[in-house]
């Protein structure tokens, strides 16, 4: 899990960092403003989760706002068995999926619905060599756009797995738990998602590689 998804925070009025449980108790007792501190470290995780389903930054942002409100209203039912961030991400995922379902016209069946999770072979982009693109190249807007475009092209269920595992860097078990699928299914979808991503992105990355690599 990313370092910005930690569970405790501090307030401007209290020099001692509060634990997550303390913050929640105080929010329920009426210190509403502490809720901002509680959700702040989860912002990137919830946004990425909503984005992984909806592919639209604007829609993802709206869903995050709805999910945060829902979490606030349901805070009394949060039992602390999982981390607050995990709970909020789960609410966000459900909200995003509901929104996607609502937005799909019944007759409009996406091609991705026909992509199964079977054992069919998948062929990557076959290259003769690879020149590494360093992370400094991410300063270039077009490289970031290319990577995001690659993710956009993945069917939803593969995008969800790839963003959970490889962008948010959850482990396989956490990914399975969040998405409500088995560990085996995570591995299968991850295998397909990673090779699809390689097939979509690698040829263009390679073609533009000289601009991104040193020397």
């Amino acid at each position, binding site marked *: 899990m990313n370092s910005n998804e930690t569970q405790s925070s501090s307030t401007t009025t209290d020099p001692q960092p509060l634990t997550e449980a303390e913050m929640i108790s105080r929010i329920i007792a009426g210190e509403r403003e502490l809720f901002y501190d509680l959700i702040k470290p989860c912002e990137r995780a919830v946004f990425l989760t909503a984005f992984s389903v909806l592919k639209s930054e604007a829609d993802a942002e709206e869903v995050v706002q709805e999910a*945060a*409100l829902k979490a*606030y209203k349901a*805070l009394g039912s949060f039992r602390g068995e999982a981390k607050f961030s995990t709970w909020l991400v789960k609410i966000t995922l459900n909200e995003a999926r509901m929104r996607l379902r609502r937005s799909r016209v019944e007759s409009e069946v996406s091609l991705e619905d026909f992509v199964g999770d079977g054992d069919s072979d998948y062929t*990557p982009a076959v290259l003769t060599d690879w020149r590494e693109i360093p992370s400094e190249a991410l300063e270039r807007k077009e490289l970031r756009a290319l990577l995001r475009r690659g993710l956009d092209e993945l069917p939803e269920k593969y995008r969800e797995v790839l963003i959970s595992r490889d962008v948010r860097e959850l482990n396989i078990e956490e990914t399975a738990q969040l998405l409500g699928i088995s560990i085996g299914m995570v591995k299968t979808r991850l295998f397909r998602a990673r090779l699809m991503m390689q097939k979509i992105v690698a040829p263009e990355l390679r073609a533009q590689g000289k601009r991104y690599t040193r020397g």
Partner: protein
Amino acid sequence: MVLDCKHVWREISNYIDGVLDPSVRASMEEHLAHCRHCAAVLDSTHNILYLIADERTFTLPAGFSERLHARLESELEKSEPASR
């Protein structure tokens, strides 16, 4: 165990995650040492995953936190969290 290219592609994801059986891993490494196509598939996949994990690839939209804060501020006044 001798692996062909298709078998190697199928296992690349598990190889990256380090969850392969040691004997399969050894066979893969033997294949990768001699097959530049599969080595390039592995290197490119690894490189792409490394790039998408970088926080610069997915940043929050500008003003995201401020808009979330403002929305919560206006809505939270109207409601209280359910008590335990």
